[in-house]
């Protein structure tokens, strides 16, 4: 009897369960599912031919290429940084460690527009280093290096914040054993540490890449919107949309939406299959 009572009291009545599930699903359908469906519906509004034409058009292809180029530079840069940062944070105890972790997370709390602005203030024509760069004939703002820098800034913490809790949780005993047995530092890293963190690393790279390819605000500020030259895919979407070329805008947007869906699926599969090997404290 008491067991019954407690079980019944811990479980919500059926009407309440139904009401809450319906509320949650309606909210998610309205706010998440509907916008996603709208992207594909609008893209295919004038048929597959118009959709395809928008994707193979010259400026669209240039935008796709540029997006890939930016990701190819910025993702590996943050990958190397993330591994180095998590190694020194997780394997050693030193003063100022918490401050370092806070600073690594800092770019997440800065508006994307400000992330772009700071590079314009530094490298732009009227910026602090502008005259020097002009004298050297180097252009960073309104050119690819600026896009890469702004993208590195906004995706800065992704890999590090995934690896730090994971490596802290795993400890250093396996590495210490390898070193005692005579392995060098690099051998220990490649043969012991890397296999232990590979799924967490992949997870971080996945999220980093999705943001790198989809970043809008920061890239918009440093790009100068030069068609076919400094337009990434999200910027191309904006230009097409502002020209009332909705089908083309949504066609390019649908490619980015597919990238987001692939990222979500891969992320879910990783969490599902290797949940125990990923950081348990992912969402603090």
């Amino acid at each position, binding site marked *: 009897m008491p067991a019954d009572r407690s079980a019944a009291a811990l479980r919500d009545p059926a009407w309440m369960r139904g009401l809450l599930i319906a509320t949650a699903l309606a909210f998610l359908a309205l706010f998440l599912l509907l916008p996603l469906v709208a992207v594909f519906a609008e893209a295919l509004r004038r048929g597959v031919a118009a959709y395809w034409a928008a994707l193979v058009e010259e400026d669209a292809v240039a935008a796709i290429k540029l997006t890939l180029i930016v990701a190819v530079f910025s993702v590996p840069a943050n990958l*190397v940084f993330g591994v180095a940062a998590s190694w020194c944070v997780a394997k050693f105890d030193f003063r100022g460690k918490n401050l370092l972790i806070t600073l690594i997370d800092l770019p997440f709390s800065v508006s994307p527009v400000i992330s772009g602005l700071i590079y314009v203030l530094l490298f732009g024509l009227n910026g602090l280093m502008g005259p020097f760069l002009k004298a050297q004939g180097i252009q960073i703002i309104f050119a690819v290096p600026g896009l890469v820098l702004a993208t590195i800034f906004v995706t800065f913490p992704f890999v590090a914040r995934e690896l730090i809790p994971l490596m802290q949780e795993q400890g250093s005993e396996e590495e210490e054993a390898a070193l005692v047995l005579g392995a060098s530092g690099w051998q*220990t890293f490649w043969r012991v540490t890397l296999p232990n963190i590979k799924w967490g690393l992949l997870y971080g790279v996945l999220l980093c890449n999705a943001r790198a390819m989809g970043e809008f605000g920061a890239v918009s500020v440093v790009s100068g919107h030069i068609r076919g030259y400094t337009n990434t895919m999200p910027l191309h979407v904006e230009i097409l949309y502002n020209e009332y070329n909705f089908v083309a805008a949504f066609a390019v*947007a649908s490619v980015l939406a597919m990238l987001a869906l692939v990222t979500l699926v891969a992320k879910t599969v990783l969490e599902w299959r290797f949940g125990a090997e990923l950081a348990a404290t992912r969402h603090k």
Partner: protein
Amino acid sequence: MVAASSSDTAFPRAGGAVTSILKKPSVIPGFGLTLGFTLTYLGLIVLLPLAALVVKAGGLGWFGFWNAVFTPRVWAAFQVSFGLSLVGAAINAVFGFVVAWVLVRYSFPGKRLVDALVDLPFALPTAVAGIALSALYAPNGWVGKPLNELFGFKVAFTPIGIAIALTFVGLPFVVRTVQPILQDLPPEEEEAAVSLGATRGQTFWRVVFPAVLPALVTGFALSFARGVGEYGSVIFIAGNMPGLTEILPLLIVIKLEQYDYAGAAAVGTAMLLVSFVMLLILNILQHWMRSRHAR
């Protein structure tokens, strides 16, 4: 490999005395290499450019800074950005909590799919979300048209549209901070409350809710902070009328396009300062709640 082998052998003898003051001894190599790289990269990519922002804004002097920030247009944008971010975060706190509750406590078909979908705003580029929401809520859109025709209610190009976009981008923050806390809540506490004669409602408000509240505040704060800085998903649906639906990040972009670098830096610095102070207040509030709950 060359660098590694040299640092492996030379590092403990050459750098040992210096680093031992800073760090505890360890047999694991690579402290100097990884910390040096981390600090250099952090300094060049994050700290130096952020310093440029403060230097540029500081170059205006107090008077110039005041004049750049306290104009009616900037003040209105402050109210729009911070006010509507609070609205979005509040909507997320309520519905995000319901979503987290449903995902943790109940089972229903397609639950895993719904769980994965919650992260969509993290993965979907903001510009894509922006044009999709704008198309949906425009006067001839799927949602905007019925709202307009039945109730004469306009969403796109009004502050309500901005609040909807900010709700979209902030949603996962609340769900993903509350969810693990709900998951880890020991059932014994609720059972104890029930065995002592509490009703379901009392158990929820006196046992479950206080335990989850700090996480809910964290989620609220993250959602709010994201909303204040958000640009891509807002500008398409906002209408961008100065003084009415113009957000702060857009104002910074406009100032940059007019080559008013110092003005843009001043507004950016002010925005960072206000967000920082608000997050500090929320952190203190959260700390206070946690210690109260622990008692």
